[in-house]
């Protein structure tokens, strides 16, 4: 019989320690302070899903305020007032609190939700498995990475409850605003970020070292699954782009607590008089250092997602992905170029011709590899035999959603059209299309796809499809109208949803005010956002219920997949592989002409 049955243990007794490792490390060492990459991956996964949910709840409160400005939030409003006091007085999300929630929604979603889920959770769980390694190279550092992440996350959470509340300077935390906002939440934010940065630093060292050092025999670079490639490049981005933000955060911290003026210029006026600071700093310096990270960071949000989509599409179209090599080279190119495009977020800070020409050129150049990746994924479908399960549905939806998000990056990338679109809801729509129906859909796909590996049970398909349908419809209803709002001139980060920009009788003669219809769209969007929340209920039920009630998998390889993670017992034991593994072919040998079955696992010696 085949390789996969040779390594297959019945999932039941495949629990842990089947290798030579016989002493029982006890509950704490197994599930809490574990150094096993799979446990850490799951820890990351669960905590980041919770954070994602938090980010979502913050956003719902904001959406209420946008649609019905200054009206108390039903049910939740009084609760907020009870917990947070004055800023939520009357159960209304006041401007300060709105800014807080906005900043924290962005921060949580990016740094505590999507990156930890896509990179740390999926990456930790899968990369060692996919390359045939027993664990990460530095298991204890891996554990430290998770705990550092959790500490960072807790600091962020705690900051909601301190007097003055959480950070209010946007997720971008621009100085001098960030320094002048009177809440300590801003300081908490910086310190939290330092922990998160440390965490991803430790993680990325581990990922890179693992991929370089621990590939199983035969696992050449061009035999690595696309997902692993994406994670590898992501790790490099994190390794080299995050430290400058760490430096920037230290400087901002100094500004905040030691009275320095790194980002504060001479001649600043606060509270009606010349600020008592030494001055001489530069607000633009923060922006450069911040975006030096934050642009590469957006590729950190998307590359793991692309990796997941690649895996799921190859598996469910039952054929190799189109242009594996160009995918790999494109991902490398994206990673490389992503470091030199950052200032496209700063076109309107007074940039001169030469430098903005440079940055818009690189911005256009970086869109080319993205186009190649998307094209390859689209073309992979051609000639396939496509199975529409929940994982595949989310992956397929990812393609046009990312397409829309990516394409709308182009008018932002030309500085001349950015004059009109900068900091409008067009930008909000652009990036949410890439991160929400983009990355988040891919992450959902990943959850559905690898769930059986981690738990031994499949998730319910019907609930999955309901989840998909609801998410797909409402995501689009939320974000598509935002393009129109943005083009009409609606600015982002407005705590009243633009109401003060609306035409009224008193301002009828003023041109450029927002038409009532533009503002009214807010209501529709917010309703869709609440319904999006409702659509997540099947997922949450499914996620927890399937652990106990889900359909048990009958083989270790329920999707008939080729990559190595499916060639281990389910769930994989400590040490992962029960026998030494050797790789004979590329990652996506599906439907090979002449082969007995429609998939050839990477570790199966012969084609029979």
């Amino acid at each position, binding site marked *: 019989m085949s390789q996969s049955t040779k390594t297959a243990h019945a999932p039941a007794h495949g629990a842990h320690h089947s*290798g*030579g*490792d016989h002493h029982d490390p006890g509950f704490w060492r197994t599930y809490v302070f574990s150094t096993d990459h799979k446990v850490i991956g799951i820890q990351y996964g669960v905590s980041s899903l919770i954070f994602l949910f938090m980010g979502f709840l913050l956003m719902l409160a904001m959406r209420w305020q946008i649609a019905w400005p200054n009206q108390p939030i039903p049910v939740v409003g009084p609760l907020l007032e009870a917990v947070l006091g004055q800023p939520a007085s009357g159960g209304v999300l006041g401007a300060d609190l709105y800014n807080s929630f906005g900043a924290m929604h962005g921060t949580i979603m990016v740094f505590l939700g999507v990156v930890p889920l896509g990179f740390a959770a999926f990456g930790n769980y899968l990369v060692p498995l996919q390359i045939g*390694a*027993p*664990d990460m*190279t*530095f*298991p204890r*550092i891996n554990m430290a990475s998770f705990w550092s992440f959790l500490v960072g996350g807790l600091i962020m959470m705690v900051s909601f409850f301190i007097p003055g509340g959480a950070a209010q300077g946007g997720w971008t935390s621009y100085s001098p605003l960030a320094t002048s906002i009177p809440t300590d939440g801003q300081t908490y934010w910086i310190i939290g970020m330092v922990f998160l940065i440390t965490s991803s*630093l430790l993680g*990325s*060292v*581990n990922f*890179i*070292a693992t991929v*370089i*050092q*621990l590939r199983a025999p035969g696992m050449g670079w061009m035999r690595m699954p696309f997902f692993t490639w994406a994670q590898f490049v992501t790790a490099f981005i994190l*390794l*080299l*782009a*995050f*430290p*400058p933000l*760490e*430096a*920037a955060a*230290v*400087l901002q911290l*100094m500004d905040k607590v*030691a*009275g*320095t*003026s*790194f980002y504060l210029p*001479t001649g600043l006026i606060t509270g009606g008089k010349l600020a008592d*600071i*030494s*001055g*001489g*700093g*530069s607000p633009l*310096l923060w922006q450069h*250092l911040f975006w*030096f990270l934050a642009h590469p960071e957006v590729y950190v949000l998307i590359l793991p997602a692309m990796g997941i989509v690649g895996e799921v599409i190859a598996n469910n179209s039952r054929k190799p992905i189109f242009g594996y090599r160009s995918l790999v080279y494109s991902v490398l190119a994206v990673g490389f170029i992503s470091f030199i495009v950052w200032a496209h977020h700063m076109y309107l800070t007074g940039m001169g011709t030469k430098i903005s020409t440079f940055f818009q050129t690189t911005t256009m150049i970086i869109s080319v590899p993205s186009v190649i990746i998307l094209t390859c994924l689209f073309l992979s479908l051609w000639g396939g035999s496509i199975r529409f399960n929940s994982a595949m549905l989310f992956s397929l939806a990812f393609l046009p959603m990312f397409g829309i998000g990516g394409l709308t990056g182009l008018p932002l990338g030309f500085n001349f059209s950015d004059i009109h679109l900068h900091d409008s809801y067009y930008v909000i729509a652009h990036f949410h299309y890439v991160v929400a129906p983009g990355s988040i859909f891919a992450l959902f796909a990943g959850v559905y796809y690898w769930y059986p590996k981690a738990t031994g049970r499949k998730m319910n398909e019907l609930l999955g499809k309901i989840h998909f349908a609801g998410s797909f419809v409402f995501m689009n209803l939320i974000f598509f109208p935002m393009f129109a709002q943005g083009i009409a001139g609606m600015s982002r980060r407005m705590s009243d949803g633009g109401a003060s920009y609306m035409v009224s009788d008193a301002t009828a003669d003023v041109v450029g005010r927002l038409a009532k219809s533009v503002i009214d769209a807010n209501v529709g969007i917010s309703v869709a956002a609440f319904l999006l929340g409702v659509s997540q209920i099947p997922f949450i039920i499914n996620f927890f219920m399937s652990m106990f009630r889900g359909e048990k998998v009958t083989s270790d390889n329920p999707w008939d997949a080729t990559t190595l993670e499916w060639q281990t017992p389910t769930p994989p034991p*400590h*040490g*992962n592989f029960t026998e030494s593994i050797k790789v004979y072919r590329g990652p996506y040998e599906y439907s090979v002409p002449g082969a007995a079955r429609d998939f050839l696992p990477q570790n199966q010696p012969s084609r029979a």
Partner: protein
Amino acid sequence: MDIPYTVMPRRDTGLYNAKLGIWLFLASEVMLFGALFSSYILLRVGSYPGVWPHGLLNVPVGTVNTLVLICSSVTVVLGWAALKANQFAKYRKIQAITLACAGMFCCIKSYEYYDKFTHYEVILKDGRVIDGHLVEKVGGGQLVDGRRQPPEAIVIHGVEFPADAKAAGMAKVPLIHNLEKASGHHLEHKEFRIPWSDTKKVQNYGPWHNTYLAIYFTMTGLHALHVIGGALVIGWIWGPGAAMWKSDPERYTNRVEVSGLFWHFVDLVWIFLFPILYLL
């Protein structure tokens, strides 16, 4: 379960895990300090005339500290070479010098910090400026209504600038230190007893004093944290961790090598910090 290549190098990469790991980590450190160096350049280029001090720090002291770090760097690598040659006792001795150097570096650095924190610029209400080291603060300090009372007077050993010096020199409070240089004539150093009620602003040379001191304290502070961290690791390997030499000498040697690589990096950062902060 064992993770491969923890001790022996992998064939195709020629590296053992920890060595790759430390180089990756150092790569990120390069970016960390790189960002700070970039900030330094931008702040300096953007600073207006008279505010960037030249020669504010004590060059001989800085030079000594540089030499101390260089010494520790050579001892680290010699210590490792001794281990490679199986001379554990020699390694112990040499590495002790490294640790001593690390301690010395921190002492000298704290002395320099202390010197800056006790350096005061006092602007008087009549516009005169007195700049120098704190001798003492007379009286005050008691708590009234939970607020600390200011001293009655402050005694400074330093120089005095006439009221128009700043206005004549530069627009905004430039560094007094530069005025002294620019004015050419040597001012007499002596002790000044200034009643607190005469002062408009009293500020020491902490990071808040100007952008130069801000970046000076930030960069050297971060560097000092690296020195301390490195010394702790090296010290641990040297002391309690040395038991591993018996059980797994190869791995122990690797540890020494890896910690040494980190140490050299810290030295390397200083090699740049020294000229840009002390000399230029």
